[in-house]
């Protein structure tokens, strides 16, 4: 069949991972409308803005985890890296350093963790679960140590109220075109990494490694370098989340970013990124992050207990992974041997 003869919908669904992403979007709309019917305040403009802002953190962490998941690996350290980022930035600013150098130093520290993860997994072939579990503790340990095992004071005490406010506004409280900056930052990062994954050679190499690492090697893909790149993306995004958390609290919290690695997995998996590697698109991660945040927001607004919220979200994650496995097995099952 020629490409020109395909209907636009068929063409759209033919894009790798698009089916799962669209399913997640449909799910998102259904969930959102359902909560809105129960509590019309869900549809309010302010709630939508808050939803977009809160979703941005999950989107960034989802992008971080999706990159790694597509290569068939996992990064358990991203939550701790986010915490480390928040603590280092806050400590430096409380010490009087201007936010720009503080941000750059923090970024460097986080990227070092990314490189270490990449080397351990790509070069030394450590199981990613174990390697990143180790760096997770290391990063969290640094987050604790950086300010002598206590949270920092308000950043404004170090850099002054004006600079402190500017920092907080830039990353969290400020608005551009009526939407919180956090969302715009996440959107720009999303567009950049979406392009990188879908339109560049590196992107194809990432998919190739997740699909068949041996064949990727034989096709000239530098597996170590590509793995390091994915962990760098992961660490970079986690660092950005750390700045957002720092700006949100106006201080450094040692427990910032706790469990975010799992939120990242959830956002990716709900959006159709396979934990087995090789499939998924960032559009799905976008939908996954939105589903996650809508669920949290909606359950909150209808007055559900925290316990119920966790149960519902947990069930949805398991269902999404189950769907992925069933689809894969189904595909394998119906495969015909042609001679």
């Amino acid at each position, binding site marked *: *069949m*020629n*490409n020109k003869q*395909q209907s636009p919908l068929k063409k759209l669904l*033919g894009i*790798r991972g698009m089916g799962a992403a669209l399913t997640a979007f449909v799910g998102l709309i259904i969930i959102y409308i359902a909560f809105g019917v129960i509590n019309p305040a869900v549809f309010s403009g302010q709630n939508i803005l808050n939803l977009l802002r809160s979703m941005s953190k999950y989107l960034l962490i989802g992008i971080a985890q999706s990159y790694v998941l597509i290569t068939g690996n996992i990064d358990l350290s991203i939550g701790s890296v986010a915490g480390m980022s928040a603590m280092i930035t806050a400590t430096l600013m409380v010490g009087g350093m201007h936010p720009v150098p503080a941000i750059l130093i923090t970024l460097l520290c986080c990227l070092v963790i990314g490189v270490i993860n990449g080397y351990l997994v790509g070069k030394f072939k450590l199981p990613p679960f174990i390697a990143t579990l180790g760096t997770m503790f290391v990063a969290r340990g640094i987050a604790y140590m950086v300010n002598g095992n206590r949270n920092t004071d308000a950043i404004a005490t170090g850099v002054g109220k004006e600079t402190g406010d500017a920092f907080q506004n830039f990353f969290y409280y400020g608005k551009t075109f009526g939407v919180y900056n956090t969302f715009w930052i996440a959107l720009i990062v999303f567009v950049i990494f979406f392009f990188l994954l*879908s*339109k*560049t*050679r590196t*992107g*194809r190499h990432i*998919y*190739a490694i*997740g*699909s*068949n690492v*041996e*064949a*990727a*090697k*034989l*096709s*000239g*893909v*530098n597996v170590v370098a590509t793995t390091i790149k994915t962990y760098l993306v992961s660490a970079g995004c986690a660092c950005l989340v750390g700045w957002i958390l720092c700006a949100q609290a106006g201080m450094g919290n040692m427990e910032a970013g706790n469990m975010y690695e799992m939120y990242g997995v959830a956002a990716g998996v709900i959006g159709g990124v*396979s934990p087995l*590697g*090789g*499939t998924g698109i960032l559009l799905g991660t976008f939908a996954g992050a939105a589903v996650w945040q809508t669920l949290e927001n909606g359950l909150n607004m209808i007055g559900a207990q925290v316990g119920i919220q966790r149960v519902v979200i947990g069930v949805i994650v398991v269902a999404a992974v189950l769907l992925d496995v069933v689809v894969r097995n189904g*595909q*394998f099952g*119906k*495969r*015909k*041997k*042609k*001679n």
Partner: protein
Amino acid sequence: MKQEIFRMERVTYIENGVVMLQDFHLQICQGEIMGMVPLNNHGLSSFLKLLRSNLSLHDGYVYYCGEKVNSWMGPCRPYNRISVIQAKSSLVERMTVTDNIFVLRQGFHQEIIRSRLLRQQMQPFMEDIGMDIPGSRYVEELTVFERVVVELLRAVILGNRLIVLSEIGALISYEELGKLHEIIRHYAGQGFTFLYICSHLEEIARICDRVARLSNGRIQKITGKDEMEAEIMRICPDEYWMMVRCHREKSRVEKHREPVLVWQEPAVQENSGCSFEVYQGECLVVQAAENGQFGHITDILTGRCPMGDTQIKMGERRIRCVPADCRVAVVSELAARTMIFPELSYMENLCMCLARRMPFLWAGRKIRRNIRKEYAGYLGEEVFDLPVEELSEKQKYQMIYTRVLLQKPRVVFCIHPFQGADVAHRMFVWSMLEMLLDQGIAVVIVSVSLSDSLALADRLLILEKGGTQTQIPRERFDTISAKVPWTHLYGSPEYTGSVEIPEKIC
């Protein structure tokens, strides 16, 4: 009269709506070594499945050891005690040989494992067949030949009366194959029955009493030992004969120039070393007396181990990592399974190596559209819209070799390119390799089996035990001791004179 061990009677088996076996008849008697030549692989995997598991049949009956075990009315028992030895090991790695043979079986009930006792129990079996594989050795440390022998031994110890060996000749060297045949004959003499599946009748003729020809899920014909020589001529399609002959005549015209690649590997400790050079448009076949000798070469080719002391040069420039160098391409064994990216599209699979030359290939659609336009006539328009997992074996091979062609390498290394392929697919792989040679690309085939590879070769490099290596040019292929197809086409006086065209082609 010989006792019947296994019989399939009028078996029709349907899998996912596709008739895999149709009106399938096969009878094997005790102590017999039955051969099977699959002209195409259709139905072969289903047949192997049905040997071990009694799946629902559409029609027919299956008898094993005198009992009806399966029929169209339903299976009488779930499994048959039949061992199948093939490329994929059924042994558990990271466990010792004795653990695999004695502990991992249904009848073993001891809680405390007495390893020394098990090793002592295994010793007489090893002495019986003249082998010396330590029982304490881990499975991953075994050579392919040793692994096959251990699997065979396990089948014997388990008391499985029928043992199936599938395409073993492609895994082990000629000498090892000779030894394996001795072991098979030994156990056949003791009443064990063997089914020897192999695409090469020459190999089957060395060991089997009868041979069954499988085609499209049906046994076409069963031939006795006396008729096998004539059958060899019949079974090979005319086109294949023509391909071999055409290539042979074409190759003689080519004159070798400067080497495009020089491989120098010094002998270090247990690694016996290997050195060779290959010329533009030349096909060099590297064959080893033992499969283990290839380990280092294949590891370097696939990038699994660093180059170490091995030096690979193209002109003056040294290659640091073979897979990373775009002037060299590697086609790994069982390429249709190992070299595809199931989650990626056909175009992505096709252009994976091209992206090394064109970094912005994925940014726009123009180049990909042009590739599609250019190759649609050759590859087929429909394949571009199919998931790669749904492609036929032939289409997968076509995609992989076209990927290599798009890369425009100067040398292509093929590791066991004909392994696991039936006659039709072997012909196809053959034509693909010839296409590369026609483009002036040097092809190095790394294989233990000379069948098929030899016909394509311009030069043969044999790695002997102990590190010596022998080079045999095409003109002297008739001196090769191994009984492989096509050798009769070479050597004086036929080589220098006109080659006799087989009767059936005339």
